[in-house]
């Protein structure tokens, strides 16, 4: 600034009073100021473009055209960083001749980290100005050969967003001078901040659209999955009243319960938990429930159903398995038989107290060949059975503490007079977790004998 003022040409002073507030400036100084104002205007224009559109390709082409114009450059290119392959690939390349620029993109030219000038910039996260690339050993000549383009001078700037490296932008060959200046580098870096913002905005937008599609898909899956469970979670048959609750940790889950009538006068109650959770568990749950309905028809013995299911699930994908308990209750006499496959014990609530029923059990279904067995009991008037999945006692509170089986049993002991234990426990879990994220699917089934 000082230099410019020193070199200014001073006009003759004709009217001292009239011209006393005027400061004469040199033409060079004026041109510099004009250029800076023009650059600033372009940067402001680019800013407003970024906030007005999410069309990524259009946006980047536009910004690059502006950069090329403002910097009087022959070409401009952007290499995007692919985190998975740890490589850079040409995403946009604008030169005066469209045909040559398309070649780089068509051939999908990629650079490793550290390879070429762009690779160096990506690796070191530092911008570079190079006066003559052919004197720089980092320069990757193949891109020039492929493009039939002669790179002379360039500025390369890393594009960095909130989640790290996005790519590298390069402006190539000034038209009006032999190489770029520090001022050019400053302007181009400002452009690169805009380009990074545009890339991030567009990625966030694409991700949010994908998330929304995924969310809608999950909503549909959730409705579909509920359709696999019994239509009515509560019913009475003979002297037996059954009620259930199923709360998946996510929209969909891998817990199962089902009620069937295998033979006249008896009710079959299955409660199960597929390993894992989310989509894979939900899909496997759907397969298991249809297998169960098919294989349990007319079968009066729970162990026979389990043996058949175990064979059917032996080729489970990715080691998936099912822990389950299957009860068959005679609705006229209260006699019931139960088989267990690696499932948590059930609780027997009677006038005399609460008993933990850890009956002989086989391993979870779908792992190894096994001969399952069953145990037989008889319900007395007022007796209740509570069957649950581990999500009930694995529930966590806000400080990450698990409820635990012991605490659950203590709660049941204290509240065994409640009309609906299922509802009471669901409320208790709600209070216990107090807004903490549900970590596992929860299923509870209560069998009440009149």
């Amino acid at each position, binding site marked *: 600034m000082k230099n410019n003022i020193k070199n200014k040409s001073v006009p003759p002073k004709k009217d001292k009073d009239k011209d006393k507030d005027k400061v004469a400036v040199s033409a060079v100084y004026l041109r510099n100021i004009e250029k800076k104002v023009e650059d600033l205007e372009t940067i402001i224009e680019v800013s407003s473009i970024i906030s007005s559109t999410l069309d990524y390709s259009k946006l980047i082409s536009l910004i690059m055209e502006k950069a090329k114009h403002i910097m009087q450059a022959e070409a401009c290119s952007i290499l995007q960083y692919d985190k998975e392959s740890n490589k850079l690939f040409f995403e946009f390349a604008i030169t005066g001749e469209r045909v040559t620029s398309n070649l780089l993109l068509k051939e999908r030219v990629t650079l490793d980290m550290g390879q070429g000038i762009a690779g160096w910039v990506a690796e070191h996260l530092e911008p570079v100005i190079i006066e003559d690339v052919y004197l720089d050993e980092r320069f990757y000549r193949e891109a020039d050969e492929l493009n039939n383009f002669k790179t002379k001078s360039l500025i390369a700037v890393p594009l960095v967003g909130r989640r790290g490296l996005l790519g590298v932008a390069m402006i190539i060959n000034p038209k009006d001078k032999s190489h770029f200046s520090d001022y050019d580098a400053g302007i181009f870096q400002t452009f690169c901040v805009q380009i990074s913002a545009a890339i991030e905005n567009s990625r966030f937008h694409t991700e949010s659209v994908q998330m929304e599609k995924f969310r809608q898909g999950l909503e549909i899956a959730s409705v579909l999955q509920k359709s696999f469970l019994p239509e009515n979670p509560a019913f009475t048959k003979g002297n037996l009243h059954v009620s259930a609750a199923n709360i998946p940790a996510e929209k969909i889950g891998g817990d199962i319960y089902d009620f069937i009538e295998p033979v006249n006068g008896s009710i079959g109650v299955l409660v199960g938990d597929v390993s894992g*959770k989310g989509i894979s568990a939900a899909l496997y749950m759907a397969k298991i429930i249809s297998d169960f309905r098919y294989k349990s028809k007319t079968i009066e013995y729970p162990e026979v159903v389990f043996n058949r299911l175990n064979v059917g699930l032996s080729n489970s994908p990715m080691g998936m398995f099912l822990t389950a308990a299957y009860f068959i209750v005679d609705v006229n006499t209260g006699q019931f038989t139960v088989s267990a496959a690696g*499932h948590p014990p059930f609780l027997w609530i009677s006038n005399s107290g609460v008993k933990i029923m850890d009956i002989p059990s086989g391993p979870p279904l779908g792992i190894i060949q*096994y001969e399952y067995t069953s145990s037989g009991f008889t319900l007395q008037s007022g007796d209740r059975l509570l069957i649950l999945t581990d999500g009930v006692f694995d529930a966590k509170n806000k400080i990450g503490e698990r409820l635990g089986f012991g605490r659950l049993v203590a709660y049941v002991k204290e509240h065994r007079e409640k009309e609906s234990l299922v509802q009471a426990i669901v409320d208790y879990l709600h209070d216990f977790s107090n807004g903490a994220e549900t970590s596992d699917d929860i299923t509870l089934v209560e069998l009440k004998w009149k």
Partner: protein
Amino acid sequence: MKIETAAHSDYTVISIAGEIDMYSSPELRDTLLALVKKKAATVIVNLKDVKYIDSSGIATFVEALKKMLAYKGKFKMAQVPDRVMEIFNFSKLDKVFNIYGSIEDAANS
């Protein structure tokens, strides 16, 4: 979760530390399936420093076990912490896995 692999002349020890859950089990799966692919004769998983395992983690072991049984390979567990053993007992997985007190016991059995 941290995984360390130590190859011995006739068995491989996979030592796991931390939590084996839905998020960490894919890495464990890759390690175990690489051994299965090579038809490793004996794999011993050392669970001494495992703090927690969920059913996704157990399924990863089940998959390795089933795949190794198919070519008569041996999948063994050693130094299972009490907390993990409780889960195994509760789920009757002690009927599924061969569990040993020490790596030496597992190697010599």
